[in-house]
C-alpha cells in the first residue's frame, strides 16, 4: 500500500526525511528543506538587505545546494541580496580541476558572477607540490589554513560584504567532536557559532546557512532536484584525523538519528570556566592578515615550505616567529627536527 505524504496527504511519498522520519513527497520535502534554511537565516539575522554575498563554491554537493537554495530564497522572500560565486583552486589534479568545471557550469546555470582564486597565484604552491614535500599525514592542515585566507582574499577582491559557506550539520558536529578529542577548548567555544562577527577591516564575516541541515538531506535534495555537482572525495584526505570523528558520528546517527543535533546542542551550551586562556585577535606582522600570534599560520607554513622544513607549521612553532621575521637561519638542531620524516 503506497504511503501518502504526511504533509500534503495528496501525493505519494517518495522519501523518508533523515532528520524527522516523515514520509514526504518531493515538493513537500523541497518546501520543508528550504523553509528550515529560511528560518535559520531569519532567526540568526545572517544577512541585511542590499548586501553582496559571496557563496563559497567548490562544486561539491554542499556548495551547489547552498548556491541553489540561496538563489531560490533570495527571490522567494526578497532578501535583496546580490549573490556571487567564489571558488578556490588548491591545485589538486584529478580532483579540484574537475570540480572547478562543475563550478563553471554552475555559474552558467545560476547566472551568477564567478571568481576563482588559486593557491598558485596567492602563495606560489599547489597542493600537489605541498603533498610531495609534506607527505600524506599533515597535508590537510596546509590546505585548510591556506583556503581560509584564500577565501578572504578572494572576497576582498570581489568586494563582497559577507561570505557564506556550505558547512552542514554533520560538519559542525564533527568539528565539535574533533575539538573534544583534541582537547581544544578555544576552538570548541567558537566552532558552533553560525556566523563570525568581525569588526576588523581585513576580514570578511562569514556564515553557515546550512548549519542545521543534515548531510543526508542535502544529498537527497541535490538528487531530487537533479542539481549538477561533483561527488568525489579529496584524494589526499583518507588519513585525516577528522575521519575518526566522522566514523563515530555516522555510527551515532545510526543508533539515534537526532545525535547530530544533540552534539551541536552540547557544543552550543558548553559553559567554559572563567580564566581559561583564549587567543586574542591581532594582525600578522608579515602579511597583515588576522592572527593571534606575531605571524599568521599561513606565513609560518609557507616559510616552512620555502625553506624545505615542512614540519615548521605543525606542532609548537611560537619560538620561531622572531627568527623568521628577522630572516635568521635556524640552528642545525632545529633544522633537523623540522625536516620531513622519510617515508
Amino acid at each position, binding site marked *: 500500500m503506497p504511503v501518502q505524504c504526511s504533509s500534503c496527504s495528496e501525493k505519494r511519498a517518495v522519501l523518508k526525511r533523515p532528520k524527522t522520519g516523515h514520509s514526504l513527497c518531493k515538493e513537500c520535502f523541497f518546501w520543508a528543506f528550504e523553509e528550515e534554511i529560511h528560518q535559520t537565516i531569519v532567526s540568526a539575522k545572517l544577512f541585511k538587505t542590499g548586501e553582496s554575498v559571496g557563496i563559497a563554491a567548490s562544486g561539491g554537493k554542499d556548495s551547489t545546494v547552498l548556491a541553489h537554495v540561496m538563489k531560490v530564497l533570495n527571490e522567494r522572500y526578497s532578501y535583496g541580496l546580490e549573490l556571487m560565486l567564489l571558488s578556490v583552486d588548491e591545485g589538486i589534479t584529478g580532483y579540484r580541476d574537475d570540480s572547478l568545471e562543475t563550478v563553471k557550469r554552475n555559474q552558467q546555470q545560476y547566472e551568477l558572477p564567478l571568481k576563482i582564486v588559486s593557491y598558485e597565484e596567492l602563495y606560489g604552491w599547489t597542493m600537489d607540490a605541498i603533498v610531495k614535500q609534506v607527505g600524506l599525514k599533515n597535508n590537510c592542515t596546509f590546505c585548510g589554513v591556506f583556503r581560509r585566507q584564500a577565501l578572504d582574499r578572494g572576497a576582498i577582491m570581489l568586494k563582497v560584504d559577507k561570505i557564506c559557506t556550505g558547512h552542514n550539520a554533520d560538519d559542525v558536529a564533527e568539528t565539535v567532536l574533533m575539538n573534544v578529542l583534541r*582537547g581544544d577548548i578555544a576552538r570548541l567555544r567558537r566552532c558552533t557559532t553560525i556566523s563570525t562577527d568581525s569588526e576588523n577591516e581585513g576580514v570578511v564575516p562569514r556564515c553557515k546557512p546550512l548549519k542545521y541541515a543534515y548531510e543526508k538531506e542535502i544529498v537527497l535534495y541535490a538528487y531530487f532536484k537533479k542539481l549538477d555537482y561533483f561527488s568525489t572525495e579529496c584524494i589526499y584526505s583518507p588519513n585525516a584525523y577528522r575521519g575518526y570523528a566522522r566514523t563515530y558520528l555516522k555510527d551515532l546517527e545510526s543508533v*539515534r538519528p537526532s*545525535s547530530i543535533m*544533540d*552534539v551541536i546542542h552540547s557544543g552550543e551550551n558548553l559553559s567554559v570556566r572563567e580564566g581559561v586562556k583564549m587567543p586574542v585577535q591581532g594582525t600578522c606582522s608579515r602579511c597583515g592578515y588576522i592572527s593571534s600570534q606575531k605571524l599568521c599560520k599561513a606565513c609560518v607554513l609557507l616559510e616552512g615550505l620555502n625553506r624545505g622544513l615542512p614540519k615548521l607549521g605543525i606542532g609548537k612553532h611560537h619560538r620561531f616567529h622572531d627568527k623568521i621575521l628577522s630572516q635568521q637561519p635556524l640552528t642545525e638542531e632545529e633544522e633537523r627536527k623540522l625536516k620531513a620524516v622519510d617515508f
Partner: protein
Amino acid sequence: MAALLLFVSVSKKCVKCKEAPAALVIRAGDAYCRLCFKDFFIHKFKAVLGKNRIIFPGEKVLLAVSGGPSSCSMLRQVQEGLSQKANKKLRFVPGVAFIDEGAAIGQSVEERQRTVAELQAVFQATGFPFYILPLEQVLDLPASVVATNPSPSEQPASAYKAAVHHFVETDGSNFPRPQEPKKTLLPRVQESHTLMLQQLLGSVKTLTAREELLNTLRQHLLVHTARTEGYSKLMLGDSCTRLAVKLLTSISLGRGAQLAQDTGFSDSRYGDIILVRPMRDYSAKEVAYYNHLFTVPYVVIPSVDTKTVDKASIQRLTESFVTKLQTDFPSTVSTIYRLQLHTCFMHISALNISCVLQVSSDSLAVKPSTFFEASTADSSLWVLIAELSVLHLYYRLPETTRLKSLLCYSCALTVRDMVSDDVFDPFMHEL
C-alpha cells in the same frame, strides 16, 4: 605481553627508586617496582583529596561501591588511608553503599542473593557500616529527592586548615567515631516491586535511554540514602578512562551544559550532598594493575549492556570508540578527560530552574514550583513515569506536556524513548 613484562623486569630498574627491578610499565617509559607503584597509587588518592580540600575532618562520607574494580579499589584506598599514622591519616568517617540492580538485568532472586553475599563478605572485612540497597527502593522515593536542598553554610578554604588543625589538636575525640557495622539483614524485596521496576525499564525503547534512566535512578537512590543516614558526601569510583568515555557520551547525548557536574571532581547539584570522584586520575589500566598486584577483591556483575554489540547504545559505542582510538593515539583518554577542567558549573540556586531528573540547568527551562504542584497532585514522580510508560501515553496528553517542560534537553530525549514508539516524535523537536 608476558614476554614484555619479563623483558622489563629483567633489564629495567624502577624509574623512581632505581634499585628494585621494575614490575610493571604504566605509560611508555614509566617502569615501577611493586613498592614504588604502591606508594604512587596511594599518594595519588590522598593528593586528590588534599588538593581539593572539600572533605572536612570527621565528615561522614558514603562510598558508592558497584562491586567493579574501580570502586573496590577506592574502598581499599580508603581503608589504607584511614589506617595510617596520625599525621598522614585520612580523616573522615566512611560508610559503604551497594545498589543491587539484579532486577534491571533480569537476574533471579538466587543469583542476586549470591552476588550480595559475596559483596557483603568484602564489606564486612572492612569494618565500615554498609547498606545493601535493592534498586526497587527507588520506586518508594519521595518526590523531594530531586530537590536541591540548601547546602550547609559555605565553608571557605581557610576553614579547612583551621578544621584540620583543630582535629589534630583534640586528637579527634570530639568527632563521631566510625560506627560499629550493624548486623545488616539482606533486605527483602517484594515481587510486585521487582515487576514494576522491570516494567518501567522495559518500557524504554532504546538501550541508550534505559542506561540513562538507570544512571538517574541509581544516583537518586544514593543521594537519598546519604541524606537519610546522615552522610554529607558521596564518593563515586569512576576512573579516568570511564570519565573520558562519560564526557564524550554526554556530548553525544546533548548534555554539554552539564559537563562540569557529570565529569568534574565535585558535583554539588543536590546542595546538601556533594558527589566526589577521587578515582578520576587513575586510568583503568593502573587500577587493574593495582588490584592484581595487591589482591583487591571485586565482584564481576553484568550490567544492561554487557555482551552487546557496539551499536547497541550510545554509551557502548563511545566506550568502544575511545578505547580503540586510545590504542592508536595514547593521549586520547587524558586529553578528553582534561576538557572538563575547563568547564564550569552553571550554578543553580534553590529558586532557579532545574531539570527534575538530573537536577541540572540547561537551555530548556523549568520551574520547580510547577513540578511540585504537579507532583503533589500525582504522588511521586516515579509513579508518574511508571504510569506513563505502562500506559504508553502519547504526547498529546497533559501529563506528558507538563513533564516535558520539567526536563532538560537530554532527559527529554530519554523520556521520549519511553513514551513514544516513534524516534522522531515531535514531542521532542521544536525546530
